[in-house]
């Protein structure tokens, strides 16, 4: 077991290092980051601009060889220093840490909605196969897959904020602010969970142990809840976790639509402002979160299922 854990940890670390390296060199290939950080206001003379540019290059260490820069980057990163935001002049880490809780709340609520709406939908569809309920569930899950989330967000704002005036259009403040963004973010998840739980339930219901459970005279509720559902729960968790990269991508879009002050919105703004240290750190954050989540999932599986450890 410990050999498996160590191997898996090393793999995850390797992936994180590769992500950082990839983005680091991508930025350097793309041009001169110092030129983006210079203040180009009209009242400044070319000499002033040039001086600031040279100063910035030196402060960022851009005048050295790229491999030295790379080594220096790791040195600083080890101390938690990922550079300063061009726009706000504060450490990029501060900006991220400020906004991270908002994104986590949003993501957690979306995951909750995804499971609490998707699971019953899929189970009901499987139990009423071929009926109108099944058709409704299928339609909902197809819609969840084909709809562009940014458009859905706009429509929800029109319906619930503009027409009915029930929920706020954007921003934060009360619990009512989070409803529309979370619902928008959850649509893909609802669709996926519903589809997986439907097919998982159909497969479980055809198994011998279900027939045995019924033959024992267990109530239908026990058969479904304790036997069929429990055996399908692992695959549902797998699906929720493995949709994480896609969910994170959607977070950016949804946060922009609802002006939600999270890390995704921060990244979109940083891109628009060419605030590259923030973009860089955001990508590293998203990558690390994904890698760690997959790592935890794999380790959990290894605990549950001994066969995986020995592969």
């Amino acid at each position: 077991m410990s050999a498996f854990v160590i191997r898996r940890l090393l793999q995850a670390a390797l992936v994180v290092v590769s992500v950082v390296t990839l983005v680091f060199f991508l930025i350097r290939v793309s041009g001169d980051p110092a030129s983006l950080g210079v203040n180009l206001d009209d009242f400044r003379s070319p000499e002033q601009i040039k001086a600031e540019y040279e100063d910035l290059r030196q402060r960022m260490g851009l005048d050295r060889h790229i491999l030295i820069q790379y080594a220096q980057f790791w040195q600083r990163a080890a101390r938690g220093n990922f550079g300063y935001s061009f726009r706000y002049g504060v450490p990029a880490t501060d900006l991220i840490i400020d906004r991270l809780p908002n994104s986590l709340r949003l993501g957690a609520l979306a995951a909750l909605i995804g499971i609490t709406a998707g699971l019953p939908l899929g189970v009901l569809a499987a139990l009423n196969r071929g009926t109108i309920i099944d058709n409704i569930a299928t339609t909902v899950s197809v819609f969840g897959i084909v709809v562009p989330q940014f458009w859905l967000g706009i429509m929800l704002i029109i319906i619930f904020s503009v027409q009915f005036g029930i929920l706020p259009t954007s921003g934060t403040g009360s619990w009512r602010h989070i409803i529309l963004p979370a619902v928008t973010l959850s649509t893909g998840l609802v669709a996926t969970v519903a589809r997986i739980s439907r097919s998982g339930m159909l497969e479980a219901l055809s198994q011998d142990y279900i027939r045995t459970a019924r033959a024992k005279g267990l109530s239908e509720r026990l058969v479904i809840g304790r036997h069929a559902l429990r055996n399908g729960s692992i695959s549902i968790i797998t699906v929720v976790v493995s949709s994480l990269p896609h969910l994170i991508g959607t977070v950016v879009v949804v946060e922009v639509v609802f002006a939600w002050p999270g890390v995704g919105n921060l990244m979109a703004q940083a891109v628009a402002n060419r605030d590259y240290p923030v973009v860089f750190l955001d990508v590293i954050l998203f990558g690390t979160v994904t890698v760690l989540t997959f790592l935890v999932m794999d380790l959990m599986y290894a605990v549950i299922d001994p066969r995986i450890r020995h592969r």
Partner: protein
Amino acid sequence: MSELAGTFDRASERRAAQRAGIWRQLWIHRLGIIGTTLMLAFVIAALFGPWIAPHDPVAIDLDNPYAQPVWLDPADGRGILGKDNLGRDILSRILVGSRNSLIIAFSAVLIGMVSGVALGLITGYRGGLVDDVIMRIADTQTAIPFLVLLIAVIAFLGGGLVNMIVFLGVGSWVGFARLIRGEVLSIRERDYVQAARALGAGDVRVMFNHILPNSIQPVIVAASLSFGGVILTEAALSFLGLGVGSIVPTWGKMVADSRDYVTVAWHLSVFPAVAIMLVVLGTNLLGDWLRDVLDPRLKGRRG
């Protein structure tokens, strides 16, 4: 004897299915046919959009901004699907815009498919260090959320049609590579491959003449299914202002542009979005159908 009877039975079943008539066949394959029809319609729009379009898609008509769709306001000179904030005909813009959206998606999937298949073939066939390195790169790429990576790459390297296609294509090689690698690993040791090798066929010949044709079917299905994903990603990027900037917008750009006017004119936003959803629906239905037709073993597996 019994085996022969079985053969006869199956043959008679097949004849019965053929006799069942074209309508029954169509009903069985109805979803696939809907998907195919949708895709055909959009391909026709992409090819002939400028000639089919009832109006000039960029012609500005400031007398009729926000004109309603024709069934809500059947006055003359108003587009079938209404007009946008500058009085441009929405139907014409969707028809002409389909070319950009489909070209991007088609080229990107093609790039992803070709590079993914090539790398998957090599890693699966060779194994060893090459396999390790390429698959670790694949792991790294999947660790970064695709849209986030794309946003960063476009922000740093710039957008534009060609860049967009290349980035979206390079972003989707991993799925194809993993798929074909798995196929190759199982086919590599089959008898006919061993036989070809024994007859003196070289690596390239074995890979392309023997392994590839036998592992390509799931790739075609995956290509069809990933087409919709690329359309959605491109639309999301356009929405964030990172799409291809051109006079004739893509559907994602149309939805993004309509955002400021949604409270006065819902139709600016709804119709391009419907176009996006229909294409994505079409490719998904087509992909599911292709999978069932090409490989009955996988029937109903996805999801």
